[in-house]
């Protein structure tokens, strides 16, 4: 936004319209003496942009002239290339008005116009600073009204400088409103919690929580008492009912009647029990008598019977023993026979075993002889091979070794080479025959070949057929000493080897090689037949046993094994037969022994019974007599039993009768005891209940429970209050930090080059908490702002303002910077630098300087403004 003009009517001293026109985008200076209305213009502008037309507070009232009237302000602003005219007046009733024109066209009015102006004053992003910036001396901006000591100290620290800068900082960070809000949050939170949000000792939150705990504990205690009280009341009611029942006269009479009945029943039962005991004694006596009679009868019958049985048994055993004795004899004879057979079988088996042993030894001997023959054969072959080996080795040693033959061959080749050299230098002849005369010339024993050169170093003798002998003398002598030496050396070597020529030597080598072949064959053969050596072979042979003629004589028993097997089978049969016969014989003997024992037993029984029955003439008659006695006694026992049974049937249950008696006695005793006990218990309960009544336990409990509910509600309210304050504090802190990050740091950045124009190397540090300059460093010294001179403070204040304006301009929301007598304390030297700064910033900012220092500001340059009457 760029301010173009401002027109006032009925604003303080300007009862007649005045105008400041021609305000340009760059630097503008309105220099006029004091009391000419410069501050009025500033206040009017402030009202235009920040006071609703409906406002009529002390700020607006201060605009009204003494004579009265409706203050009206008209301002022209340029925004995004369009010029708007804003008209606003304040007053009661119809006097208030606001309109926005574009040219002569009404653009907005009333609330729309107010909203539009608010939009102009704010950057596009909500929460940005206002669109006008000004410095006004001494204006604090807001009246906090709170005189708390902390705040008071804080306010005291805000001198002219900070209040000036503060107007911008406020716009960004919430300013003093924010501080007040933060301080109130801190103060109220501080009542409840510590800085770390812990519950504050002695604070209302802690007190409330303690109260809740205390009441809850009291409720708990009272509850227990109340429960005890109710239990006691219930117990008392129950016990009293029991006591009433016990005291009931009808009940007591009934208990006594039951006791008498029980006592009578017990006496009758006791008598009956004695009768029954007597009857049982008589019955037992009779039963014993009858049983004795029965025993005597049975004993006699058993003895008679046993006598007959023993006699029969004795006779049977005797007869059987005679029969078994015959069997014993027969089995013994058979046993003797089988024993004979068995002994024969043993002998046959021994013979067969001997034959088999001989046969086995013969087989072993055959194997030994075969081995011996093989060893002898191998020994003979080995001896032959060893002789061949030794012969071949001897031959090899006597013949010429191959290396000697090679050496001789070399010597021969050397001689031939020497000879060829000699022949080339020696006289030579060449015979060229005419056709048909070939072989006509002979040299020695051989024909001269046609065209062949033949050296004749020492001359020669030629026989020419049909012509005669031609002697040729060699005139030129050839040196053949080397040849002769070589031949001598060869000859000497041959002689040392025992040979005359090289061919003999070679023949010797051929024999040596043949001997070698034979030696190798003999070695192979020797290893084949005697791998471990001939001595070892001889040792094996010596180890073999000598021949056994007797064994060899058994060679004529080829079926020894068959005979042995048969003999074994025969022996087994004989053993089995003998065992069988022996078992039969033993069995018969044991039977015979048992029969003898039976016979002895029967005889003994017979003797005992005879002793018992001695004196009884007729046992059968005696038996009949004893049986009659027993029958009589049984009849008498029956009678006794019936008598006893009848008494038993009629007998009362003694334990039942006794129990009833005891119970009847006990009931009365217990009732008396219970009455006494209940009286005592009830007295105690009454005392306890009365005590509880006096303590009003239930009333106290109900009261405490209700108090607990109230205290818990209070605690909840306090916790909610703390949550509200914490949330508010968090929101404020967060917003303030965001504003700082968004605006303050960029402002610092813009400020630095301006600062350096005034004080090369100058540096400002900022109070992070207050977001205000803290110290100023220049020329190597650092000072607190509070001790800086007034001039320096105001200069820095203006620089901060200009930096802020530059920051807004860079963000696309340029705002005019208005300086109202802002440079008062600055000396002439420093003011020059300040003018440079203003001029520099005015290149892309609108700056309006209002000053009373007309002379000093003449040097500033820029567009000069005037307050002039509006036409």
């Amino acid at each position: 936004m760029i301010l173009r003009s401002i027109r006032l009517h009925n604003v303080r001293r300007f009862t007649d319209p005045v105008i400041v026109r021609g305000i340009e985008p760059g630097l503008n200076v309105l220099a006029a003496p004091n009391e000419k209305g410069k501050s009025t213009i500033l206040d009017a502008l402030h009202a235009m942009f920040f006071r609703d037309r409906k406002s009529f507070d002390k700020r607006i009232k201060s605009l009204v002239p003494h004579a009265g009237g409706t203050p009206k302000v008209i301002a022209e602003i340029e925004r995004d290339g369009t010029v708007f005219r804003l008209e606003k007046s304040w007053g009661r009733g119809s006097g208030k008005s606001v309109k926005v024109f574009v040219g002569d066209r009404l653009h907005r009015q009333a609330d729309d116009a107010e909203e539009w102006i608010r939009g102009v004053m704010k950057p596009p992003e909500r929460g940005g600073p206002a669109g006008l910036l000004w410095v006004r001396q001494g204006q604090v901006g807001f009246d906090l009204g709170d005189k708390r000591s902390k705040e008071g100290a804080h306010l005291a620290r805000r001198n002219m400088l900070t209040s000036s800068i503060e107007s911008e900082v406020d716009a960004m960070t919430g300013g003093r409103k924010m501080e007040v809000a933060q301080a109130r949050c801190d103060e109220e939170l501080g009542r409840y919690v510590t800085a770390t949000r812990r519950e504050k000792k002695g604070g209302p939150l802690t007190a409330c929580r303690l109260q809740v705990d205390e009441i809850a504990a009291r409720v708990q205690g009272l509850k227990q008492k109340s429960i005890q009280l109710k239990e006691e009341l219930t117990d008392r009611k129950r016990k009293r009912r029991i006591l009433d029942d016990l005291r009931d006269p009808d009940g007591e009479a009934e208990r006594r009647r039951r006791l008498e009945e029980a006592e009578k029943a017990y006496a009758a039962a006791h008598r009956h029990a004695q009768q029954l005991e007597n009857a049982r004694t008589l019955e037992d006596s009779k039963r014993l008598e009858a049983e004795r009679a029965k025993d005597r009868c049975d004993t006699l019958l058993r003895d008679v019977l046993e006598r007959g049985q023993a006699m029969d048994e004795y006779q049977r055993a005797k007869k059987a023993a005679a029969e078994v004795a015959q069997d014993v004899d027969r089995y013994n004879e058979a046993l003797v026979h089988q024993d004979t057979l068995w002994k024969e079988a043993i002998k046959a088996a021994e013979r067969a075993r001997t034959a088999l042993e001989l046969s086995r030894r013969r087989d072993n001997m055959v194997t030994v002889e075969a081995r011996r023959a093989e060893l002898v054969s191998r020994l003979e072959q080995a001896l032959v091979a060893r002789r061949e080996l030794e012969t071949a080795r001897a031959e090899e040693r006597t013949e010429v070794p191959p290396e000697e033959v090679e050496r001789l061959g070399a010597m021969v080749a050397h001689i031939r080479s020497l000879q060829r050299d000699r022949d080339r230098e020696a006289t030579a002849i060449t015979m060229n025959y005419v056709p048909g005369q070939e072989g006509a010339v002979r040299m020695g024993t051989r024909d001269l070949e046609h065209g062949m050169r033949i050296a004749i170093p020492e001359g020669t003798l030629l026989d020419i057929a049909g012509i005669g002998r031609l002697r040729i003398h060699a005139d030129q002598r050839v040196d053949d000493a080397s040849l002769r030496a070589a031949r001598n050396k060869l000859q000497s070597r041959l002689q040392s080897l025992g040979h005359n020529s090289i061919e003999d030597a070679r023949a010797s080598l051929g024999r040596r090689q043949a001997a070698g072949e034979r030696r190798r064959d003999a070695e192979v053969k020797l290893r084949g037949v005697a791998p471990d050596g001939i001595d070892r072979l001889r040792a094996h042979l010596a180890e073999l046993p000598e021949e056994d003629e007797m064994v060899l004589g058994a060679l004529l028993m080829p079926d020894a094994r068959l005979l042995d097997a048969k003999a074994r089978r025969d022996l087994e049969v004989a053993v089995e037969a003998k065992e069988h016969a022996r078992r039969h014989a033993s069995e018969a003997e044991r039977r015979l022994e048992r029969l003898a024992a039976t016979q002895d037993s029967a005889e003994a029984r017979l003797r005992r019974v005879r002793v018992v029955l001695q004196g009884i003439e007729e046992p059968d008659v005696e038996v009949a007599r004893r049986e009659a006695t027993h029958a009589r006694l049984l009849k008498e026992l029956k009678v006794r039993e019936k008598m006893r049974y009848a008494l038993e049937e009629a007998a009362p249950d003694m334990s039942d009768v006794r129990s009833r008696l005891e119970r009847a006695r006990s009931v009365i005793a217990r009732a008396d005891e219970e009455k006494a006990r209940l009286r005592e218990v009830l007295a105690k309960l009454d005392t306890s209940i009365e005590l509880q009544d006096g303590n009003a336990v239930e009333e106290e409990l109900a009261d405490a429970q209700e108090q607990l509910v109230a205290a818990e509600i209070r605690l909840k309210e306090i916790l909610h209050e703390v949550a509200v304050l914490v949330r508010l504090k968090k929101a404020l802190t967060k917003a303030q930090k965001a504003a700082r990050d968004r605006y303050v740091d960029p402002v610092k950045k813009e400020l630095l080059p301006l600062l350096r124009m005034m004080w090369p190397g100058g540096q400002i540090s900022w109070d992070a908490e207050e977001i205000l300059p803290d110290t100023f460093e220049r020329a190597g010294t650092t000072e607190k702002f509070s001790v800086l001179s007034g001039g320096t403070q105001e200069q820095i204040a203006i620089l901060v303002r200009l930096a802020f304006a530059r920051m807004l301009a860079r963000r696309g929301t340029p705002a005019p910077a208005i300086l109202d007598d802002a440079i008062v304390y600055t000396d002439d030297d420093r003011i020059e630098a300040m003018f440079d700064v203003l001029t520099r910033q005015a290149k892309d900012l609108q700056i309006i300087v209002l000053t009373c220092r007309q002379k000093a500001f003449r040097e500033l340059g820029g567009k000069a403004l005037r307050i002039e009457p509006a036409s």
Partner: protein
Amino acid sequence: MPFRFVHTSDLHLGKRFGTYPESIRGRLVEARHGALHRVAQVAVDHGARHILVAGDLFDSETPSPSVWRQALSEMSRHDSLQWVIIPGNHDSLVAEPLWDRVGQYDAVRLLAEPTPAELAPGVVLLPAPMPSRSPGRDLTRWMEGVSIPSGLIRIGLAHGGIAGFGEDSEVIPPNRAERASLDYLALGDWHGQMRVTDRTWYSGSPERDNFKHDGYGTCLAVTLPGPGQTPTVKSVRTGQFDWAEVELTLTPEQGAVKALAAVLHAGGSRRNMLRKVRANGWIRLPERAALAQAAEDLAPEFGLLTVRTEDLGTECMVDDLDAISAGGALRVAADELLAESENNALSDEDRKVAGASLRRLYTIVAPL
């Protein structure tokens, strides 16, 4: 000749009102004791000799000596009156020591057994005393089968809740009077006055004790013309305090302070009024602050005044937020709190805290 009596119940003597502020508690306790005298006066005015107390004369089974002694002393002041009492669930027959003492006073007739009792010549009372706090059965059932000579006025006296016409185990069927041929069934337990049928009534407490039942406490002055005839029942105020829970529905355009004043406007002494105002609807930030201030200002005039605003929404207009700050960090904080208070994705508690934080911010900075 008609038979006249007074029907009351649920005096709950000894109740201490622990959830209420200290300033009113003593007065409420005292008013409760004073109800005895006022009920007696109603009986005198009504020409009755009997006051039927349908249970819960005391708040507990073991009231403190000062409570029961002062009560019985007050009840004995009128020689011509007899207080006919049955124990209720709060002071059941388990409280034997209490009732032993009460029974020693001539002015009191305790009916501890469910058997017919002659109240006056030609008038039979059928009581249903509570043997314990929760007996688990309908104690009035015996009234149907009891044999009583014809030509007598039959009055039932019981304590407990009623339900439908089913035979629930513990509740009293609402047609018990008709089924048992009672001329009148005097019921207690419900602290508000209620007519169940022509012959069956809850008298209500003579002095209200919470906001569940509006208005003043009452008792019933009953006249029975004769056996089988319809009774005449007259409600008589006995309460000292006027209890009321009122709803205050607000809109942003409405002046909240005036609206509060309107709902609190009522005749009578505000000193004896207890009011619980439940505000709901929506108002703007300034109005809300003004409402809170008005409630704080008015409270001392009343016996008790609370304004609950849990259900009251706050509508924030731009002007309201501008009153906090037109821009800058304060405005950012206010916008954030407003958004949070309207964010349905958050818990109800978080929204409430955010809204309260915004209101607090407004309260702090708007006057600056």
